[in-house]
C-alpha cells in the first residue's frame, strides 16, 4: 500500500489557443513536467479553463488518483477560482491546486521561444515543488451586512442606489455637492436621441429622495473607510449648509429676501456663467431642494451685522441656522460602490486655443449650460456680450488623443460635439464648423445621428486645430476669432473666422481621485481612472473585495454605458450580500504554541490588532476573524512559531528553489 499522502500531482498545461502555445513549446514543457518529482500525469490542452479542460482534471482525480493539481496557464487573478471550483466539484479540497502563470509572465512578455520555454519549465518546477506541500484547508465564513455605501450622486450613483434599494438593501448615497445630479444635470440634451437630460434624470433624482431605503447624504464627504468586505466602517463628514435640511421646504423665499437684491456671485453649478446669491439653491430641480449658505460671501458670516432678512423670510419654518457646524457620522455597510465621476480637461492648459483669454472661447460644458433651458441664458446660445453668433467652430479632441495631455480617446466627445453642432444650428442658425481628427461614432443609433448631422449642412473639417487667434489677416477676419487648422483632406491650411469657439474637452479623473483611491485602498490605471479587477470578466469589481466601481471614475463613457455599469455594480453588491454570509480565503496566520516564546515582537506589527498574548501560558494567539492574511507577523517571528496557510515557509522556499532550477 502506498502512502495516501504521498503527492500524486497532475500538471495541466494550457495552450490558451495560441496565446501560450504560440511562444512556449508546450509539448516539451509537458514532457519536462512528467519527469518532476511527484508528478503522476502531465497533459496539454487547448483551453484548460473550458468545461472539457476542467473535466479532464476531474477525471484524472478519480482515475489517476491525483491528490495535487498544478495548472500552468494564465494569472491566478483570472482563473484560480475556476480551477479551485473544478477540483472541489471533483470531490477534492480546492486548496490542493496551484496555478503557474505562464501567460502574463512568460508567453506574452518573452520574445525568445527557447528562453520562454525554459522560464516556463522553471515556473512549473516551482509550482510542482510547492503544491506537494499543500494541505487541505477550509474556507471561513463571515456574516455580511446588507447596507451599501455609494460614493457620488451623478447618474451612476443614482442608478446604483435605486437598483440596490429596490432590492431591499439600505443605501447610503454620499454626494459632495449640495445636490445630486452630477454632470448629467448640467446637460441640455443627450445624444443620439436628443432626449432632454433633465426629463430623464430628474424623475430618478426625485425617486432617490422618496425612497424609504435610501439615506441621502448630500454636501458630504467620505472621510475614512475601515474594515473589510461585508463589514466596512464608514465615516462621513457633513459640511454645514447653515440651513436645516429637515426644516427647509425649498420655497426660495429666503433667497428672494436676501439683502443682496441681485445675484452677484458666480454660480458653481453654472460654471461661472450665471450668478447666485450668498444663500442659494444650485438649480431649480436640485435634490435635496434645500438652500445653502456660502459663508465666504454671506454678510452675516463676514461681518455679523447683517439684517438677516433671510431669517425673517423663513419665519416659522426656522430653517436657517448660522450656528450649524460640521458633523461627522459613522455607519456600517457590507459593500461599497464608487461612482465619483470625472472632471473635464482644463482647456487653459492648451494656451494656443485661447481658453480663458479670448472671451469667445468656451468649453463644451459651458455651452451645455448656455443651451440648457434652466441655464443662465434660458437656453439662448449667445456670446458673453449677448450677441448671437453667426459662425461657430467646434474643436474635437481637446486634451484627448494628444500625447502631451491624455493619450486616450475620451469616447463621448465626437458625439457630444455633433449634438452641440445640432443645438447651435437649431438655436442660432449659425454656420457650424467641426474640426475633427477622426469621427468616432460607434454605438446604437450613433452613426445614424452623424448622418443626420451631415444632412443638416454641418461643415466638417478633418484636421487638428493648430491655433485660435483674434489677430486678423484679412478684412473678413476683422473682429472674429480665427480657427487655424490643416485640412488634411484638402491638403492645405484653413483659416476659418467664427464668433464662438467650443472646445470639446477630454474626460479626466477627478482631481481627488488619488485621495479616494487611498481611502478605499483601490488601484488606478496609468491614466488615473480606477482600475477594474478584469477589463472583460470583472469590469465593475476591484481588487478590494466588496468594493465596486461604476461610471466615468473607471474611464470615459457615455450615459447608457454608465447606467448599465451602475446597474451591474449594484447587482454585484446585491449578489455578494444576498446569502448573509461570505466565505473568505483561508490564507491566515497561525501560531504553533509549542514554538512560541511569548516574546510579543509580533503584536505591534499586526495592522489589525489580531494578535493577543495569552498571559497564563505566555504564548500569542491570532484571531481568525481579525487576521487578514498579510503575513507580516510570520516574517517577523524569531522562533518560527507563526506560519501562514498557503504561504508557508517551506512552500515559498520550494518555489525559490524551483524558479532557480533552470
Amino acid at each position, binding site marked *: 500500500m502506498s502512502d495516501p499522502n504521498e503527492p500524486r500531482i497532475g500538471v495541466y498545461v494550457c495552450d490558451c489557443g495560441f496565446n501560450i502555445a504560440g511562444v512556449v513549446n508546450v509539448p516539451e514543457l509537458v514532457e519536462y513536467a512528467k519527469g518532476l518529482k511527484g508528478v503522476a500525469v502531465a497533459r496539454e490542452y487547448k483551453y484548460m479553463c473550458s468545461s472539457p479542460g476542467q473535466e479532464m482534471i476531474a477525471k484524472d482525480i478519480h482515475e489517476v488518483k491525483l491528490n495535487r493539481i498544478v495548472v500552468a496557464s494564465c494569472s491566478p487573478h483570472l482563473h484560480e477560482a475556476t480551477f479551485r471550483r473544478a477540483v472541489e466539484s471533483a470531490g477534492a479540497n480546492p486548496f490542493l491546486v496551484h496555478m503557474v502563470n505562464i*501567460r502574463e509572465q512568460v508567453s506574452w512578455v*518573452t520574445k*525568445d521561444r527557447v528562453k520562454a520555454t525554459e522560464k516556463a519549465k522553471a515556473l512549473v518546477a516551482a509550482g510542482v515543488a510547492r503544491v506537494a506541500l499543500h494541505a487541505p484547508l477550509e474556507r471561513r465564513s463571515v456574516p455580511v451586512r446588507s447596507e451599501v455605501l455609494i460614493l457620488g450622486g451623478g447618474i451612476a450613483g443614482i442608478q446604483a442606489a435605486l437598483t440596490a434599494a429596490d432590492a431591499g438593501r439600505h443605501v447610503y448615497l454620499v454626494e459632495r455637492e449640495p445636490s445630486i445630479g452630477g454632470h448629467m444635470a448640467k446637460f441640455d440634451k443627450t445624444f443620439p436621441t436628443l432626449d432632454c437630460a433633465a426629463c430623464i434624470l430628474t424623475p430618478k433624482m426625485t425617486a432617490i429622495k422618496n425612497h424609504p431605503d435610501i439615506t441621502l447624504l448630500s454636501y458630504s464627504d467620505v472621510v475614512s473607510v475601515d474594515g473589510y468586505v461585508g463589514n466596512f466602517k464608514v465615516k462621513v463628514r457633513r459640511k454645514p449648509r447653515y440651513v436645516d435640511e429637515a426644516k427647509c421646504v425649498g420655497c426660495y423665499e429666503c433667497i428672494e429676501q436676501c439683502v443682496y437684491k441681485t445675484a452677484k456671485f458666480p454660480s458653481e453649478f453654472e460654471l461661472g456663467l450665471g450668478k447666485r446669491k450668498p444663500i442659494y439653491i444650485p438649480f431649480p430641480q436640485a435634490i435635496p431642494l434645500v438652500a445653502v449658505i456660502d459663508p465666504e460671501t454671506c454678510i452675516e458670516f463676514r461681518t455679523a451685522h447683517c439684517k438677516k432678512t433671510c431669517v425673517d423670510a423663513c419665519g416659522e419654518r426656522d430653517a436657517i441656522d448660522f450656528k450649524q457646524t460640521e458633523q461627522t457620522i459613522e455607519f456600517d455597510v457590507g459593500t461599497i460602490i464608487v461612482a465619483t465621476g470625472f472632471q473635464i480637461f482644463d482647456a487653459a492648459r492648451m494656451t494656443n486655443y485661447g481658453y480663458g483669454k479670448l472671451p469667445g472661447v468656451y468649453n463644451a460644458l459651458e455651452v451645455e449650460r448656455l443651451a440648457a433651458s434652466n441655464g443662465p441664458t434660458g437656453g439662448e446660445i449667445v456670446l458673453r456680450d449677448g450677441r448671437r453668433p453667426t459662425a461657430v467652430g467646434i474643436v474635437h479632441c481637446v486634451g484627448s488623443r494628444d500625447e502631451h495631455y491624455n493619450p486616450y480617446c475620451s469616447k463621448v466627445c465626437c458625439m457630444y460635439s455633433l449634438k452641440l453642432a445640432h443645438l447651435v444650428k437649431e438655436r442660432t442658425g449659425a454656420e457650424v464648423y467641426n474640426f475633427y481628427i477622426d469621427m468616432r461614432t460607434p454605438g446604437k443609433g450613433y452613426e445614424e445621428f452623424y448622418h443626420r448631422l451631415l444632412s443638416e449642412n454641418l461643415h466638417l473639417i478633418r484636421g487638428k486645430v493648430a491655433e485660435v487667434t483674434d489677430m486678423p489677416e484679412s478684412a473678413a477676419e476683422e473682429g472674429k476669432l480665427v480657427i487655424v487648422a490643416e485640412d488634411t483632406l484638402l491638403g492645405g491650411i484653413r483659416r476659418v473666422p467664427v464668433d464662438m469657439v467650443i472646445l470639446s474637452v477630454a474626460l479626466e479623473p477627478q482631481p481627488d481621485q488619488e485621495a479616494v483611491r*487611498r481611502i478605499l485602498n483601490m488601484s488606478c490605471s496609468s491614466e488615473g481612472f480606477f482600475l477594474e479587477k478584469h477589463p472583460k470578466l470583472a469590469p465593475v469589481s476591484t481588487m478590494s473585495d466588496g468594493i465596486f466601481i461604476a461610471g466615468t471614475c473607471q474611464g470615459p463613457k457615455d450615459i447608457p454605458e454608465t447606467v448599465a455599469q451602475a446597474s451591474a455594480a449594484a447587482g454585484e453588491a446585491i449578489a455578494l450580500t444576498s446569502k448573509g454570509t461570505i466565505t473568505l480565503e483561508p490564507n491566515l496566520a497561525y501560531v504553533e504554541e509549542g514554538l512560541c516564546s511569548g516574546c510579543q515582537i509580533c503584536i505591534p506589527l499586526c495592522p489589525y490588532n489580531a494578535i493577543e498574548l495569552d498571559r497564563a501560558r505566555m504564548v500569542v494567539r491570532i484571531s481568525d476573524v481579525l487576521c*487578514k492574511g498579510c503575513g*507580516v507577523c510570520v516574517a517577523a517571528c524569531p522562533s518560527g512559531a507563526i506560519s501562514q496557510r498557503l*504561504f508557508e515557509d517551506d512552500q*515559498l522556499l520550494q518555489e*525559490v528553489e524551483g*524558479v532557480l532550477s533552470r
Partner: protein
Amino acid sequence: MMQTQHFEPRIVAFVCNWCTYIAADAAGVSRAKYSPNVRLIRTMCSGRVDPQFVLAAFEKGADGVLLCGCHPRDCHYSSGNYKTLRRYALLKKMLTQLGLEDDRLRLEWISASESEKFRRVVEDMTERVRKLGPFKPNGGE
C-alpha cells in the same frame, strides 16, 4: 555554458499580490517584452518576505534578488511595506558588509498601474546583474 560569452543571470523577485503582481499581469496584457531572467514569487504582502528567503535565494543560486511592493501609504494591509522597508535596510547593510554588491539586492515600489515601471526595473536589474557576473558566495573560493 553559463560562463561562455553571454551570462544569463538568475533573479528571484518577491512581489506582493496587490500591486506588483498586478503590474506584472498588466505588463503581460500590454505585451511588454522583457528578459526572462527575473522569476516572480507571489506573497500576499511584501511584509511576508522573511529576510531568510532572500538569503535562501542567494544560497540556491540566485544572482540577484528583487523585492517589490506597494508604494508607501498604498499597502493593501495598511503598513506591511514599511516593515519590508525596515527589514530591507538592515538586510542590505548586513549583506553589503559581507561583500554583496549593491546591485544584487534591490527594493522597488511598483503599483498596479505601473506595468511600464515593472518592465523597466526588470530590464535594468537584469542588465546590472549581468554586468556583475555570477554571484559567488565567499568570493568564489
